[in-house]
């Protein structure tokens, strides 16, 4: 398991097919491939995987407010589905939103209908607007929650975080004195 041969094959196949479109691709852990693409290209990756490996399973969609201040969605996709005694290989496909204020990413629902609720959840909590999503309503937050507040972004602070920040500022002020 320590040799990443199968993973490398998948990486090679992706590289040869997409070339420059893959902004980065690497495999650190066994059975995991981390990859970054630009906005609409993730749909191409899904279509390619569906054709080549008969992939079907979108595991989840994560969303991260990265340390660089970029809102990113990460599609976790079983790029090589399990077959016989072979294990599955998972692709973590990161798609960055163009900017924070209007974070828009093309919805994957047209390729994978099962992505609907994952995208609604991500939209609710991280504020990523999925273009072409059939019904991008509130899923988890209450209906009367303010539109421009997204709890999972780093600029949304919990009470405890505010207290911590205040303490830190006080400590810094004391140190200055």
């Amino acid at each position, binding site marked *: 398991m320590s040799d990443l041969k199968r993973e490398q094959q998948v990486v090679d196949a992706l590289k040869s097919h997409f070339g420059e479109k893959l902004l980065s691709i690497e495999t650190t852990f066994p059975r995991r491939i981390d990859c970054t693409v630009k906005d609409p290209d993730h749909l191409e990756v899904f279509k390619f995987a569906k054709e080549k490996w008969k992939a079907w399973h979108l595991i989840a969609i994560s969303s991260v407010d990265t340390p660089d201040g970029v809102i990113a969605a990460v599609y976790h996709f079983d790029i090589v589905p399990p077959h016989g005694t072979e294990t599955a290989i*998972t692709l973590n496909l990161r798609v960055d939103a163009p900017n924070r204020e209007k974070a828009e990413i093309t919805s994957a629902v047209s390729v994978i209908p099962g992505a609907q609720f994952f995208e609604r959840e991500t939209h609710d909590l991280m504020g990523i607007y999925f273009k072409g999503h059939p019904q991008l309503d509130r899923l988890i937050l209450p209906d009367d929650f303010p539109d421009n507040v997204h709890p999972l972004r780093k600029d949304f602070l919990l009470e405890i975080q505010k207290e911590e920040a205040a303490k830190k500022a006080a400590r810094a002020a004391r140190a200055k004195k």
Partner: protein
Amino acid sequence: MAEKKIVKVDAPKTGCVACMPRTMEIPLGPQHPALKEPEHFLLEVEGEVIVNATPRIGYVHRGIEKLAETKTYSQNLTLVERVCGICSHIHSISLVNATETALGLEGFKPPERAEYIRTIVSELERIHSHILWFGVAAHEIGFDTLFMLSWRDRELTMDILEDISGNRVNYAINEVGGTRRDLSEKQIARMNKYMDITIKRLKRYTEICLKEDTIRLRTQGIGVLLPSTAKKLCAVGPTARASGLKIDIRYDDPYNAYAGPLRDIFNVITYDTNDVFSRVVVRLLEIIEACKYVKWLLANLPDGPVFIKPPRKVPEAHVLSRTEAPRGELIHYLWSNNTNKPYRLKITTPTLANILSVAEMLKGDYIADSTITLASIDPCFSCEDRIITIINKDRRKAKVDNLTMDQLRKYSREWHAKNKRWKK
């Protein structure tokens, strides 16, 4: 008139005017005796047949993902166990696996015995969760005798869990770097004995389910999810396996002891009638398999320590940890940033993946079958919702998240004094 208030007449759809649909909206939840947790389904019914189902979740949103960013890894283990009351252990396994994988970049490896103990607890958890589900499903179709008897047998597993971890629900047996408790010979002997009894009882229940007429009447042909639809909607866990899809993370993406020789005897249970009956059978057979795995793991338990002290800080990594919870595939996606707290922890639970499937299954069913269909995916809404209690302070005047119990009581008294119509 009462009738006008409740009957909503829709505009005629395509086709003849004579069969103009007269639909009525029936809410299923958020409070409903059949649901263990709050969750809302708006069922649009024509007579007794459901034509559309709209799910709405989020009633038990507690802000766990956000909160996890403010806590250290070992504090987070306690936190993520509170995501769900039934499958608590699998959440802590997921986080521990993610953390240890990231620590693996610095050459850290947890002891093998600890991995086995984790796996044993997770299989025991699967057994008790599935039996719980079985009892609830029996109750949904009005078979209370089966409900009572199966929960009696569940107590055996609960006793084992209490014995080895000290708790019945949140076992708190995991720790980054191993487990908190070891198994003694006496405990192992007791577990073996209890597992034999459970296997015997479960074989009997499987027999009953395959033969009993009223169970078959209520479960066969209900809530059908075809394999192609299941694939399209990304169903996971027993729901997908009951539609004939052979997916099981324990086998497809092995972790802990499943990656070892246990993989050779591992058996992915599938059944192909695609309905509720199929899900019942899959879960019952899975319990029997889980009992066998527990017995195998106990027989092959390696010696050695159960805990190795890990480094305090977790190196920067993006780790995806996949585990098979009793309800299906559970995801913990961890971004660590070289500190002792996670930068971002994303949890996706099997129920969220399956909720789309259940909305699909409900269409065309009778109202009477809606609850068993909904229960057939073993929904766990507190798992699914996790994330808020962000109080919008304009909307509600009180800061509920900072209230102590006494303050809350005082607040409720004041509220009731103000709102007299609730008083008798």
